[in-house]
């Protein structure tokens, strides 16, 4: 039995999770809503980390479990590793507040 190499948790997701360490250039088959798609991985993706199923523009939502898990902090290409280097949380961000306040003052 060929072990699946990546999993997509919901058909609305724009990221997949690697079930094994993936190398740059590897072509991975993923199942989304019963259909199979191929994605070429553009960078090394460690076991358990995510890669993009489609291009995600800077500021665009990153979706897993069919829900928003954060926002892209730069353009992310289909097949690229998706993690803390290019995604930020939208919640409980105390570090953003002083910035917002100073914006409000000007």
């Amino acid at each position, binding site marked *: *039995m060929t*072990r*699946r190499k990546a*999993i997509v*948790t919901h058909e609305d997701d724009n990221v997949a*999770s*690697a*079930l094994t360490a993936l190398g740059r250039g590897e072509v991975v088959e993923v199942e989304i809503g019963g259909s199979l798609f191929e994605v070429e991985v553009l960078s090394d993706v*460690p*076991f*358990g*980390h*995510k890669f993009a199923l489609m291009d995600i523009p800077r500021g665009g939502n*990153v979706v*897993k*479990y069919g*829900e*928003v*898990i*954060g926002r892209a902090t730069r353009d992310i290409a289909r097949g690229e590793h*998706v*993690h*803390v280097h290019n*995604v*930020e*949380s*939208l*919640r*409980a*961000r*105390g*570090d*953003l*507040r*002083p910035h917002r306040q100073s914006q409000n003052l000007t």
Partner: protein
Amino acid sequence: MEFSGYARPNGVGVRNHVVVMSTVGCAGDAAERIARLNPKAKLLVHTQGCSQTPPDIALVEKVLVNLALNPNVHSVLLVSLGCESVSADRIADRISEAKRVEVVRVQERGLSDAVSRGSDLVRGMCEEAERARRETADLSEIKLAVKCGASDFTSGIVSNPVVGRVSDIVVGEGGTVIFGETTELIGAEHVLAKRAASEDVARRLLEAVEDVERRAISMGVDMRGGQPTAGNIRGGITTIEEKSLGAICKTGSSRLVDVVGYGDLVSSKGLVFMDSPGREIESLTGLAAGGAQVMLFTTGLGAPQGFPTVPVVKVSGNPETCNKLAEHIDVDLSPVLHGEEGVEGAARRVLGETLEVASGKATRAELLGYDKFLNIYVRGPVI
């Protein structure tokens, strides 16, 4: 579905522990010596109980009473210093409504005397406890706590969904499932609120999450590194939203029937949320005080700890963790990760193990004795 447990006035215990409990940090040494002389007794020591704000003193008293009232506890020796802010008499009065409780105070005649008298009392309680016998009990008597720790991406994909299915079965059989970890609802609360049995329950859930998020924001920092933890991030979890959405899978799909405060005794049947922190020790302490007799704990990277009075069943969907940390993992769910086993079959395995543990089988944490610590989650300063 059935298990075999100890009938108590306030529920069915799955363990039969005699507990030596300090009322305050300053009495911890005396309690530890008494427990050391009685290896069958369980030691519950902590650092709270004095020089705290009145709400925290009341909270510590409540948690100590509720830990003692847990049906897994046969009887209790309270070890007091004598001048602490919490009242040993008040705590003992409330425990005595359900079981035998005795008190020794170090300030009466010093450590040696307290240890000698305390040890005699505990020896007598252990003899009484040995006469207790297990009886068949229905699954509806179970309060199952579900918790995740040292999570990685497998938690949200494998172990939490499998435990979620177990939660649904327990609730379906008339039992109770308690979950906590308010921080780990941030970003997923809207999903749970839709499952609330009433508007009031939904409101209380959302208020608890708002409160913890407001406190995080007030610190003026990005939570990352704290939540998700550095280990979570290494394990592939990017944001608190992703962690939360994976975490709530362990609650299954039942209606949320109640929201309770930290360490409150849970009285509702069905799925109940306890407002509590995500950190293991404080979280397990709150759930044990809530009355959980057994806990299901999912882990990705490998969280080894149990709890002194409540068996904690560890399950993991990470193949490397199940292999490297086999001595800590009770149920290996890694076949689910690659689709070799379905969620339903895995859930039946976990439920089977849970019922065996409830009926007396020792967990890995119990066998290893990796179950010594508790900590009461207080809000205010030490004063």
